[in-house]
C-alpha cells in the first residue's frame, strides 16, 4: 500500500500518475509512494523503485512534480531504497486492473519462491482464465515481468513476477 495524504486532492492527483510501461497501474496502486509530508503547498514525496534499474523512475518523478505543480503544489520527490519494494504492496484494485489489461497479477511471494525451487506455480491466463499455463522465460518485456504461455488458448502473456 502506498502512503496516503491528508489532503484528498493530492491523493487524486497521484492516482492519475502511472508507470509509463504499465499505464493501467497508478503509482498509488503500485505501492511505490512511501511517504507524503505535507506542509501547506510544499510537499515532500518519497518513492521507491520497483527494480534497481527501473528506467521509469525519472519519468515518474517528473510526472509527479509536474502534475502537482499544475494544482499549485511545490513537490520535492525523494528516492528511497529501504524497505525494498515488494509486489505485496500492489493493491487489490491494482491487481484487478493488471488482469483486465492482460498481465497476470503477482501471486503471493511463497508461490514464486516455490517456483524458484522448481515446484509448479499456478498462474492464471488473463485471456481465458485457464490454469494450464507454462513459463517460457523468467524475464519478459520489462524487468518486472516473466513470459508465460497458455496451453489452452495458446496465447502468450506477461506475468508480473513476485519480488
Amino acid at each position: 500500500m502506498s502512503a496516503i495524504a491528508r489532503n484528498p486532492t493530492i491523493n487524486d492527483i497521484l492516482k492519475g500518475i502511472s508507470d509509463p510501461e504499465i499505464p493501467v497501474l497508478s503509482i498509488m496502486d503500485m505501492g511505490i509512494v512511501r511517504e507524503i509530508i505535507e506542509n501547506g503547498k510544499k510537499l515532500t514525496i518519497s518513492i521507491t523503485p520497483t527494480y534497481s534499474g527501473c528506467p521509469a523512475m525519472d519519468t515518474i518523478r517528473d510526472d509527479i512534480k509536474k502534475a502537482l505543480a499544475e494544482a499549485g503544489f511545490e513537490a520535492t520527490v525523494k528516492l528511497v531504497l529501504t524497505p525494498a519494494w515488494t509486489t505485496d504492496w500492489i493493491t487489490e484494485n491494482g491487481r484487478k486492473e493488471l488482469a483486465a489489461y492482460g498481465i497476470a497479477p503477482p501471486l503471493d511471494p511463497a508461490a514464486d519462491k516455490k517456483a524458484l525451487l522448481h515446484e509448479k506455480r499456478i498462474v492464471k491466463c488473463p485471456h481465458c482464465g485457464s490454469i494450464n499455463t507454462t513459463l517460457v522465460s523468467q524475464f519478459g518485456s520489462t524487468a518486472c515481468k516473466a513470459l508465460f504461455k497458455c496451453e489452452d488458448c495458446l496465447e502468450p502473456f506477461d506475468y508480473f513476477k513476485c519480488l
Partner: protein
Amino acid sequence: MTNKIYQYLLFIGDNTMILGHRLSELCGHGPSLETDIALTNISLDLFGQTRNYFQLAATLSKEDKTEDDIAFLRMEHEYRNVLLVEQPNRDFAYVIGRQFLYDCYHFLLLHELVNSNDEHIAAIAQKSLKEVTYHLDFSSEWIKRLGAGTDESHEKMQNAINYLYPYTGELPEETPIELEMKELGIGADLPAMKTDYYNRVHEVLKEATLDIPETNWFQSGGKKGVHSEHMGYILTQLQYMQRAYPNMSW
C-alpha cells in the same frame, strides 16, 4: 573512513557495471528472443545496482565526484572489478558460464551485505538480492540445460567452464580494504564464503553432468587494477561519450 567506504563500493559496483556492460553487448544479438530479453534485463538490473552504489560513493567522494565521473572517468588501473566479469562473449556457453560463476558469488555476497552496519549498503543489498535470486535461477537452469543437453552443447558448456573456472579464485580473495570493511562489520567476509561458493557451483555442475575442472592455478589481478587485455576495449566503448564530449548528460 568515508574514503575507505568509497573504495569498498568500487569493488562491488565495478563488478556489476562491467558484467552489465558485457551483457548489454548482447542486446539484439542474443541466440533467441527470450534469452536476448533475459540477458538484457539482467544487464539493466546490474546497471541499476551500479547506479545505487556509485550514487552512494559520490556522496562520500572528497572531490565532489558525480556517479558519472566514477563510472566513466577513471583509468583502467583504477577499476576494481574481477577478471571474470570482463571475459568476452565468445559464445552463449561462455556468457552463461560467466554469469553463473558470478551470480553464485553475487548471491552469497549480497546475503552478507544485507546485514552490513552501513544502512545504505544494507538497503542496496536488500533490493539487489531479490533481483539476483532470479539471475542465479536463470543461469543455473541454462548450465543444466546445456550441460545435460546434446553432445555438442555439453562439449561447449564444458569448454566454457574449463576456461572460466580459473578466474573464480579471485572472488573470495580479500584485499586490505575488504578486510578492514569486514572487521568494521560494513563489508562481507569473503574468505568465509569460499566453501559455500564452491559447494554451490559444484552441485549445479554435477547436476548438469559437467566435470569440475581440476586446477590449482587461479588467475587474479583485477581487484588490484591489473586487468586482462579485454578491459581496455571495454573502457574504450564504455567511456567514449564522456571522453569525446566531457560533461555531457541526457
